C-alpha cells in the first residue's frame, strides 16, 4: 500500500485544490479550518457524529449482491452500496450532519446550502430542522423547475428556497449565490457545501465526512463476498459520493477506482457534463480543478438528464486522482443511464437516482466482459423517487 496524505496544509492535491477566493472570504475559511482541525480528532465530536449516522441516518448502509442483475450480464458479480437507504434518500446526509455539528460548535445559528438536484438541499433542510437552525437553500431556477418535488420537501422542512436567476440558472450559479450570501453574513452563518469542491478545507472535510461509505464497504465486502472488489464505480458530478467510497481504497492499489461522469447526449454532441473526460484545468468556486470552459476561460453550460451531475467543475482530489492515474474516469450517456435505471427497477426492485444510474450503466458495460468470479461494487448514491417525473417525461408519459 502506498502512503497517501493529501491535501497539503494549503489544501492542494498536487496542482489542484487550494484557496482561490477574494480576501473577504479568507477569514471565514480560516475560522472554519481551525474549527475543523480542532474537532476532526475530538472524541466527543466524532462520537456524536457516529451516533447520528447510526440512529438518525440508519447506518451502516447495507451492501447488497444484485444477483439477478449480475446473472443478466453473465459476467462479474455486481454489489451495491445502498446509500439510497439513508434517511432523506441519498449519501448527502452524511456530510451535512458533520458540517451541521461543526456549525453548532462554532455558534452559527444559520446555515446555507446550494443544491442542484435538491438532495443536498433536502439534507441541509432536514438537519436544520432537527437542530433548530435557520436554513436558506440556493437553487438555480432551472433546477427548481426540474425538481419541484424536492423544492416542496425543503419548504415543508422549514427551509427558505431562494431561486437563482443568474448565469445558467443551475448548480454552479447556486454555488456563486451561496458564496455571496456567506461573505455578507459571515458572523452568524455556516455555509454547508454539498460536494468535495470549493475552497480548502471543504474538499477535504466533505471527503472525510463521506468516507464512512468506503470504510463500511471495506468491512462489509470481505464478510459478504469473501474479499474486496476488483473495481469500485461511482458517479461523479462534484464527486462527493465517489470520494466517499474511493478514499478508504486509495492506498489499496489492487482495487480499480472508476468515476463515471455524465456524457449527456454524447461527448461529441457538446451537450454533456463530463468535466474530467473532456475539460481543462482552471479556477472556479475557490479551487483549481478540471473545468468545462471555452477557449476564453468562460465556464460553459452543461447538460445531463440528472441535475446532480450537471456541474462544469469537479472536486480537486478527483483531478489529482485522474492525473496520477490512481482512478480512471469515463462517461455514459443519458440514454445508457436511463436503461440502467429501468433494468435495476425491473430486475432488482430498486429504483436508483439518475445520478447513481450513471455508475450502474458503466457497470453494465464492464460486467459482461469480466469473469463470473470478478466483483464490482457500485455506490448506489441515492434513490430515484425524485426522478420519476424526468423518467416519465423522457419516455413520453404524462403523470
Amino acid at each position, binding site marked *: 500500500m502506498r502512503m497517501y496524505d493529501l491535501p497539503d496544509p494549503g489544501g492542494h492535491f498536487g496542482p489542484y485544490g*487550494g484557496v482561490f477566493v477574494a480576501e473577504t472570504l*479568507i477569514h471565514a475559511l480560516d475560522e472554519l479550518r481551525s474549527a475543523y482541525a480542532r474537532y476532526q480528532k475530538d472524541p466527543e465530536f466524532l462520537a456524536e457524529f457516529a451516533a447520528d449516522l447510526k440512529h438518525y441516518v440508519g447506518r451502516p448502509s447495507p451492501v447488497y449482491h444484485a444477483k439477478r442483475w449480475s446473472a443478466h450480464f453473465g459476467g462479474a458479480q455486481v454489489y451495491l452500496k445502498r446509500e439510497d437507504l439513508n434517511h432523506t434518500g441519498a449519501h448527502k446526509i452524511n456530510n451535512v450532519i458533520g458540517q451541521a455539528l461543526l456549525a453548532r460548535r462554532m455558534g452559527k445559528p444559520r446555515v446555507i446550502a446550494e443544491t442542484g438536484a435538491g438532495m443536498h438541499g433536502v439534507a441541509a433542510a432536514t438537519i436544520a430542522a432537527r437542530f433548530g437552525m435557520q436554513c436558506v437553500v440556493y437553487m438555480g431556477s432551472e433546477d427548481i423547475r426540474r425538481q419541484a418535488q424536492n423544492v416542496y420537501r425543503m419548504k415543508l422542512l422549514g427551509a427558505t428556497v431562494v431561486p437563482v436567476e*443568474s448565469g445558467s440558472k443551475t448548480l454552479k450559479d447556486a454555488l456563486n449565490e451561496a*458564496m455571496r450570501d456567506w461573505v*455578507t453574513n459571515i458572523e452568524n452563518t455556516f455555509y454547508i457545501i454539498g460536494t468535495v469542491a470549493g475552497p480548502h478545507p471543504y474538499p477535504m472535510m466533505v471527503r472525510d465526512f463521506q468516507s464512512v461509505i468506503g470504510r463500511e464497504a471495506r468491512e462489509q465486502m470481505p464478510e459478504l463476498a469473501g474479499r474486496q472488489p476488483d473495481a469500485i464505480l461511482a458517479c461523479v458530478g462534484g464527486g462527493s459520493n465517489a470520494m466517499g467510497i474511493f478514499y478508504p481504497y486509495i492506498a489499496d492499489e489492487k482495487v480499480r477506482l472508476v468515476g463515471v461522469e455524465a456524457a449527456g447526449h454524447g461527448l461529441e454532441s457538446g451537450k454533456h457534463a463530463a468535466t474530467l473526460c473532456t475539460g481543462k484545468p*482552471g479556477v472556479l468556486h475557490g479551487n483549481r480543478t478540471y473545468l468545462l470552459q471555452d477557449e*476564453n*476561460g*468562460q465556464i460553459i453550460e452543461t447538460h445531463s438528464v440528472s441535475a446532480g451531475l450537471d456541474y462544469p467543475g469537479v472536486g480537486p482530489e478527483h483531478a489529482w486522482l485522474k492525473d496520477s492515474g490512481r482512478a480512471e474516469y469515463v462517461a455514459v450517456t443519458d440514454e445508457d443511464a436511463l436503461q440502467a435505471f429501468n433494468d435495476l427497477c425491473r430486475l432488482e426492485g430498486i429504483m436508483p437516482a439518475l445520478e447513481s444510474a450513471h455508475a450502474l450503466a458503466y457497470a453494465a458495460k464492464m460486467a459482461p466482459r469480466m469473469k463470473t468470479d470478478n466483483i464490482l461494487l457500485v455506490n448506489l448514491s441515492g434513490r430515484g423517487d425524485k426522478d420519476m417525473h424526468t423518467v416519465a417525461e423522457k419516455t413520453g408519459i404524462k403523470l
Partner: protein
Amino acid sequence: MSRIAAAFEALRNQGRKALIPFITAGDPDPATTIAVMHALVEAGADVIELGVPFSDPMADGPVIQRSSERALRQGVSLKDVLGFVAEFRATDKTTPVVVFGYANPIEAMGVERFADAVKAAGGDGALVVDYPPEEARHLVEVLDARGLDTIFLLSPTTRDARLKEIAQLGRGYLYYVSLKGVTGAANIDLADVGARMQHIRKFTQLPLGVGFGIRDAASAKALAASCDGVVIGSALIQEIEKSPRDDVAECARRFMAPIREALDGRSADKARARTG
C-alpha cells in the same frame, strides 16, 4: 517608476485623492468602452480599473453580475479587453489602467502570455479577485518581471500577519474592501474605515484605495479623509445601465464629475490647513 506610482505621487504632492472608477469592459457594448474610459478621465479619473467579464463572478453583487452578462452576451473576451487597453493607450499616455478580473480567463490565456499582452497593450497592472496572496506568488513574479503592478485586496477581517504578507506582495496600491459582502452592497461605516486605514498604514507605504459601497459625492468625500483614493464601481455601472445607448460616455462623465469636485474640495481644504 510605474505609471500607477507616478499617478499617486503626483496626487500626494498636490494634496489630492485618487478617483478610481471601475467599469466592466464591453458593457453596455464593445463600441462604447473606449469612449467611456476617455470620458472618465475627462471627469477626473486618476486610475481606471477595467473589469474582465466572467461567467461566474462570485465576489460581485447583482449590478456587476449584470454588466458582466451584458458584455459576455456580446462575446467580449480577455483578448478583447486588452485590445481596449491598447486602443485607449494610443491616445491617453498617462492614465494608469488596471486589468481587473477573475483567475480563470487569465489562466486560460496563460499567466505569462497575459502579462506580455498587458505590457504590450500599455496596461499598468492587474488585480485578480480570486488570487489571495497564497496563490498569487507566480503572478507577482511574472508581472514584476515586466514592470507591472499586482494589486491586492484587503478586507475588514484581514489579520495582521496577512496584512504584512500582502504589503510585501502588493504593488501600486492596495484596495481596501470596506464592507463585508459583495460589490454594490449597502452603506459603509466611516469611523470604522478610518480606524482600519490608520492600522493598515503601520504595515505599508503603499497608497490605500477604498471601495465597495461608495455611491456618490458625499460618501466619496467623507471617505477620502482617511485614504488615498476611492473606487467607484457598482454605482457607476448602474448609471451606465440606465443611460441611453448613444449617451453612455456623457452620462458616465456627468456622474463622475461631481465626485471629483467633492474629493478636491475636501483635499484642498486639508492641504491649505497643512501648509497654513
